[in-house]
């Protein structure tokens, strides 16, 4: 799952941008899909969908979690299955290097 690199263990960073009403349920689900932690920040954006519910100005939350490749797969599949159809959501995965890799995977 993990591979060593000169800069530490190689893991996956999953970034999810979603409607704010989803924050609580998403972080719960991330935990259950293997994320040992996550970070959240706020922003705004535009995509194909014009409107965003429950907020009046296009605000969103941005969730980041460093996870194993397996978890990254599981999270992406979960997002596709449960969120992409109805919600203004985007998610991407990139490769990152961390120290103490065993803490996150």
């Amino acid at each position: 799952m993990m591979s060593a690199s000169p800069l530490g263990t190689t893991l996956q960073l999953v970034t999810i941008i979603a409607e704010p009403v989803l924050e609580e349920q998403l972080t719960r689900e991330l935990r259950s899909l293997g994320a040992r932690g996550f970070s959240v920040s706020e922003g705004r954006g535009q995509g194909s969908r014009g409107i965003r519910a429950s907020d009046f100005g296009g605000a969103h939350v941005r969730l980041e979690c460093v996870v194993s490749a397996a978890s990254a797969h599981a999270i992406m599949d979960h997002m596709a299955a449960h969120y992409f159809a109805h919600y203004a959501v985007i998610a991407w995965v990139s490769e990152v290097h961390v120290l103490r890799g065993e803490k996150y995977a």
Partner: protein
Amino acid sequence: MDMSGLLKANLLNPIALSFALGIVARLIRSEFSLPKDIYTGISVYLLFALGLKGGVELADASFASILKPAGMTILLGVITPLSAYGTLRYLGKFSISDSAGIAAHYGSVSAVTFVAAGNFMTAMAQANPAIPPVEGFMPTLLALLESPGIHIALAIGAIKTARPEQNIKHVLHEVLTARTMVLLVGGLIIGALMGHKNWEVVQPFYDSKGAIFRGVLCIFLLEMGVLAGARLGDLRKVGPFLFVFAIAWPVVHGCLGAWLGTLAGLSVGGATVLGTMAASASYIAAPPAVRVTLPDANPTLYLTSALAITFPFNVLFGIPLYFRAAQWAAGM
């Protein structure tokens, strides 16, 4: 005062004018808007103030005097989501989710519209001494009407679309413990406990008839205008049925509420405010609850109708109308 006089007095009020300014600002594509945290902070203040004053006056009211109005309010809390759902689903042919989603908004209540009705009645009472002041316990009724409509509409949606229950329970809890409820109900309790002496110490700050409350309210409505103005572009998307609904439904239920309020023994002012509550649509508590439980309900429909049609209609034109209805019901 005849209807056109009432309308004019209502429209030249700084609250209505501030709202209009916000809309205009957006129409001329100004980037002006209040920082979100300031907007939230103001809403905390306004709701807490409403609760506190309502609580102080609630402590003075006899149980008997509230019982009937409270019962009538709960009745309205049951009628309004059902009637909205039925109208949208069977007359308007909207999907289950859209119908239930919109019904959750119209079954609940807009606190700012409530305040605007109170303001209007204060001005009426000042102009005409024969009009008694609005009952002090009205904020209690506001708290009562806040959540049942959302619960009922979401329950309809959940049952008819056969969605998992767990999420629903979580959302219902959130509605019951949302900011509005905490501040309103909490304020009511604090107001009732602290008594008149303590109230007098903070009254100039919290009194909804005072300069601070009303001044802050203007700034709040300025931002509401910006938010409503930002949705005007979506008016075309809601379609003719929903557009008519967003005006006609409030008129019918505002008059109904005014009549039921009168039956329950409320003064003409109290009945006007109750009618306004029935006619108003929530745009704070309802949207997130609907978004999470009914993801396939189209937010454009419920946000635009509640915020860009019904809210302005009520604040600018509806309230004087429901006042007329209350006068008529009282046989004045």
